[in-house]
């Protein structure tokens, strides 16, 4: 329950009411004071003072002066006159309530209006500023445009002048040439005439027509060309220069390359070479070269070639123990297993090889084709024709020009269709 403040005192003049309200002990701020036309409230917890005023006041101009423990109100009356009392004495509770609410509502509205007004003025200011900057920028742009226009006109004039000059030069040259031609023709005529006098052949007419200069540049060029021919060197003696193009590990230009993947592949290969697992104690009694996976691979290949498949598998096994990241080892071992009809092992090894042959780049195309073909063959021999066909098709995708793969794929398809018909 708030404590009502009763210790207020007031006096009035014709147009204003002066109210002083002591608020002991607490600080009053502007937020604690609420005033509308007919209602005045000061709420400083736990104190509360409210007054339903006798007559409406001008709340916008009225002031409140907050001093040390006392608030001094100067309320300007809307209508001049003397008030009988500060507040409405015999107001019923409902009326009081109503008045209070009304007051609050009014205050709200007022606040809203004020904010609206503020917004509007702000917008106006912004607009004005924007227009001002726009004008400035326009001016700048116009200035630049004008400069450019001036340049353009100057330059166009120069161009026309130059063209006229050119025409003059052309005309002059034409005149000169014709003059020259005439001279030369005259000279020739003279010479011919001398000859003629000696030979008496009545073909002057034809000669004259031949000597008549043809129009245009053709004839003068003929004359001058003859002179020039002697100055130009003979055509160069033919020669051929053979060239090589810059080789790259992958022969594609930067615009076509898939550098990232290729780098990855190279990196992987390099890594694989470096792995040497040397924690196998049984290898101590092997010769140095027998610990080299490449050498072992070669050995395996040789034995495969001679048909000694078991020995080849042994060689590859040892190589894999030393370095299990070389895809070719698995690939070749798969071939051996195929020959030995260890079909499941063949499938395993081909799969392992394919795993190691990622990312797919043109460099390991051949290897991948072989892996797919071997795995496909193993599947077919196990009568898993669908999987086999899948692998053959994958191989065909990488190397579409290979006829054997195509034929084999066809065969498998026939077999599948055959079994489907039967079942």
């Amino acid at each position, binding site marked *: 329950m708030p404590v009502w403040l009763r210790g207020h005192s007031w006096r009035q003049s014709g147009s204003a009411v002066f109210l002083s309200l002591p608020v002991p002990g607490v600080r009053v701020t502007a937020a604690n004071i609420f005033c509308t036309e007919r209602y005045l409230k000061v709420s400083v917890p736990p104190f509360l003072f409210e007054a339903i005023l006798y007559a409406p006041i001008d709340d916008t101009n009225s002031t409140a002066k907050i001093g040390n423990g006392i608030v001094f109100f100067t309320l300007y009356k809307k209508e001049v006159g003397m008030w009988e009392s500060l507040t409405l004495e015999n107001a019923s509770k409902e009326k009081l309530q109503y008045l209070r609410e009304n007051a609050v509502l009014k205050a709200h509205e007022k606040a809203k209006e004020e904010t609206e007004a503020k917004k509007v003025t702000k917008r106006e200011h912004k607009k004005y500023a924007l227009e001002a900057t726009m004008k400035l920028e326009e001016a700048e742009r116009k200035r630049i445009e004008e400069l*450019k226009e001036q340049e353009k006109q100057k330059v166009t004039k120069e161009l026309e002048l130059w063209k006229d000059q*050119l025409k003059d030069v052309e005309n002059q040259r034409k005149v000169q040439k014709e003059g020259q031609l005439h001279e030369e023709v005259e000279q020739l005529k003279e010479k011919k005439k001398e000859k003629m006098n000696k030979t008496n052949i009545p073909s002057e007419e034809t000669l004259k027509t031949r000597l008549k200069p043809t129009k245009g540049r053709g004839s003068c060029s003929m004359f001058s060309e003859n002179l020039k021919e002697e100055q130009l060197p003979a055509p160069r003696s033919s020669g051929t220069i053979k060239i090589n193009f810059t080789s790259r590990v992958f022969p594609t230009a*930067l615009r076509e390359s898939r550098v990232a993947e290729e780098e990855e592949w190279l990196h992987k290969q390099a890594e694989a070479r470096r792995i040497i697992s040397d924690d196998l104690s049984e290898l101590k009694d092997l010769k140095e070269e027998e610990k080299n996976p490449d050498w072992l691979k070669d050995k395996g290949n040789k034995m495969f070639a001679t048909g000694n498949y078991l020995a080849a598998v042994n060689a590859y096994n040892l190589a894999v123990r030393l370095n299990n990241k070389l895809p070719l080892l698995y690939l070749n071992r798969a071939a051996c297993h195929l020959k030995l009809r260890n079909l499941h092992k063949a499938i395993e090894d081909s799969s392992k090889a394919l795993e190691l042959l990622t990312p797919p780049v043109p460099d390991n195309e051949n290897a991948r084709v072989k892996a797919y073909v071997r795995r496909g063959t193993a599947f077919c021999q196990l009568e898993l024709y669908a999987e086999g066909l899948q692998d053959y098709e994958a191989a065909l995708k990488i190397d579409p020009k290979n006829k054997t793969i195509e034929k084999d794929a066809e065969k498998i398809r026939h077999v599948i269709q055959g079994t489907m018909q039967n079942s």
Partner: protein
Amino acid sequence: MAAAAGAGGAGAGADRPQVVSHVQQALSYTLFDCKWVPRSARLLCLGSAARGTGVLQLYELRAGRLALLREIEKAKPIKCGTFGAASLQQRYLATGDFAGSLNVWNLEAPEIPVYSVKGHKEIINSIDGVGGLGIGEGAPEIVTGSRDGTVKVWDPRQKDTPVANMEPVQGESKRDCWTVAFGNAYNQEERVVCAGYDNGDIKLFDLKTMSLRWETNIKNGVCSVEFDRKDVNMNKLVATSLEGKFHVFDMRTQHPTKGFASVSEKAHKSTIWQVRHLPQNRDIFMTSGGAGSLHLWKYEYPAQRSKKDSEGAEMGVAGSVSLLQNVTLSTQPISSLDWSPDKKGLCVCGAFDQTVRVLIVTKLNKV
């Protein structure tokens, strides 16, 4: 006729060269090459019509517009052309077409070519001529570079066989040759051909000794090479490539192992299609990009052009390149560019948006 909208327009007040768009002409065919006819205000447009035939159009610059003087249609689309090997009086045009034929035309009588040879098996990507137009000395020669990986040098006086043939070794997989340029033609014997390939190879062939003089690889396909002047002792070579890079090589000093010194710049943010040096000032060149922009550059020489390395061999020192101006004219690549040899600053460019534009670059005297 829209004024050129340029990112570099802000420098209008200063003494920087401005690129002013003078005339624009819309064409009804794909334009591959445009060239000024020497000693005239006429220009030539070469390209491919929609129906797959070649088009040659001769325009004249008249009072702010281009007037069509002649239109010639040929069987195969034409990719490139040059006046470089023609004499000033005749001004024959040498063209390379999509079928690999080199033809030399007399524009006054274009029905039959003056010289014709089926030089290559695939499209001739680039052509250059030297020895004509009063520039340089020695025999007039034309060099063509083709997608079949060969570079061949022709003499219009010798039929059917090239006078020099730069081809890959037997069994070598071929790379497309994208650009060729002549250089070092300062006397009657010396001549050099530079060729750029799509895998980034640049090769310099010496025609006097018929040998490969230098090669390097700039990693990205080489779109255009040009010497700053064809008729002097080779001074600078600019090579542009895909992915917005170009290299300027200082060709005066060749180191036995390191070759030529170079400086490279990144510009355009896309393929740099062409580089062309200003005929009147060999240190200024313009590059055209795949985003329809043109950049004007100036090369500054270093204090010392060569220095000795640790073993006492001479090696070159590359200078620096500074951007003078840039402008965006189109949204499509500007595939061809040519400066007029007669009027400083006048140039024509052709873009893949089927327009040919005549531009004037101002204030080049003050650079």
